[in-house]
């Protein structure tokens, strides 16, 4: 098992946070993990991304130019990262902010109206959790329960935030799961 994933969006959408949650959950699952933020000049343009590697062996490069999957929360991110994902990989697309469809036919595309779903659940700020949930639901890369336990640790003492994030994560997982059969036997 070796997965290189890119999570991308605007600064403030929480892509670094969901990357950390995923890496932490992977660590709890006994995997080797790395989390690497893009910290170069592209950040100054307001976009933001990180690479998470989950593997059953020691991780070599923590950056990837051919990820196995990606979560894209805004238009610039789908433009930049859709072409890089390996054939057969998962691409979670935030349709609330991305007004075009994915063009690749060799990917498992998971469209999810992350902002809308999060807004309905209480706050659009948790759109990142919906998207993360969708990726986990489709890929089964880590147990969603592990992510929930990491969330509880990360936001200890802030039960309202934990609750909202749980709900959003779960809604994402449910959507993602409907795409999981497409991955069976891969």
């Amino acid at each position, binding site marked *: 098992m070796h997965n290189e994933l890119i999570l991308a969006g605007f600064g403030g959408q929480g892509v670094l946070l969901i990357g950390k949650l995923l890496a932490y959950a992977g660590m709890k699952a006994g995997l080797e993990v790395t989390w*690497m933020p893009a910290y*170069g000049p592209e950040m100054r343009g307001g976009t933001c991304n990180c690479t998470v590697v989950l593997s059953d062996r020691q991780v070599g*490069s*923590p950056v990837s130019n051919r990820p196995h999957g990606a979560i894209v929360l805004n238009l610039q991110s789908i433009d930049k990262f859709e072409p890089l994902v390996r054939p057969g990989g998962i691409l979670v697309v935030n349709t609330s902010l991305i007004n075009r469809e994915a063009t690749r036919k060799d990917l498992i595309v998971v469209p999810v109206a992350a902002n809308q779903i999060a807004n309905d659940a209480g706050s659009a700020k948790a759109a990142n959790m919906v998207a993360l949930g969708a990726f986990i639901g489709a890929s089964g890369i880590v147990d969603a329960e592990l992510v929930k336990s990491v969330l509880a640790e990360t936001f200890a003492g802030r039960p309202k935030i934990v609750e909202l994030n749980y709900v959003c994560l779960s809604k994402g997982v449910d959507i993602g799961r409907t795409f999981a059969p497409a991955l069976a036997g891969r």
Partner: protein
Amino acid sequence: MAKKLMKGCEAIGEAAIQCGCRLFFGYPITPQNEIPEYLSGRLPQVGGTFVQAESEVAASHMLYGAAGAGCRCFTSSSSPGISLMMEGMSYLAGAELPVVIVNIMRAGPGLGGILPSQSDYFQATKGGGHGDYRVLVLAPSTVQEAADLTMEAFDLADKYRNPVMVLGDGLIGQMMEPVEFKRRIEPEELPEKSWATTGAYRRAPNIVNSLYLRAEDLEQHNLDLGAKYRAMDSEVRHDLYRTDDDLDVLIVAYGTVARIARTSIDALREKGLKVGLFRPVTLYPYPSEALASVAVRAKHVLVAELSMGQMVEDVRAVIAGRVPVDFYGRVGGMVMTAEELAEQAEKLAGVPA
């Protein structure tokens, strides 16, 4: 302590605290700002002091004062800031003061850029400041190793009364990986430093100084330092990956590039090519004998760095023409991919030795 997911920079900061360091002097610069950021919060919690100096030059001389008074202390910076600290480094080496200096390298020369680079190898291993001096240089390849080597750096600094540099790059500093702190020492458990200037109460005064105006005295001082640097040779260490058989290509790389090389090597091995890795962990002293003993079993040596070719000069000196040595580098903050490096090694493997 259970494993935590930490940035390399944060792990370095925590490692310093875990081994009894309570003083930090520094000045902000990307990509190592998480070290001062972390310590500015953590040091006051453990009774330590965090000082943001007015400049890197000032920070390096604050180290001189604190180390002279016998305290464990350290600083961190990135390439242009380290250049500014080179005056202090020379004085610290001259006065034989134990300090730890962390360089999270970015691309140069000049202000350069903020992305990862390994282009300060010459500065770190060959001097950097003026005068005949050496500092131990340790190069971590993972976040865990960044923590372990930082702790070790403090012990080595005390052992040799010498500055020790931990040389990472933006990737090691910014990346998060699981890390575990394996030991904890309180400042009061550290051995006493009988040479330190702690107030000469009921004893003869100690002097910490690097000024020797009489040539005879300074020559003797240089000879003593030279003997100390030779003794430091016993601290060499290195790491090997898949080098058990005779090799088509031996890749030599440190830090970030070494971990990328492991991925390249796994891919090449699947293709049936015999490729392995020699990774120096100490860059000074350089693990010359160990490298020579592996390199002679290889048809080609490929040195890979995020520089225009710096460590390759040491490798060529070690191998002395016995095996052809090639170089591959990316610069300016570009980081080579595992595929790219594998391609270079594969090309070489096809060349008759």
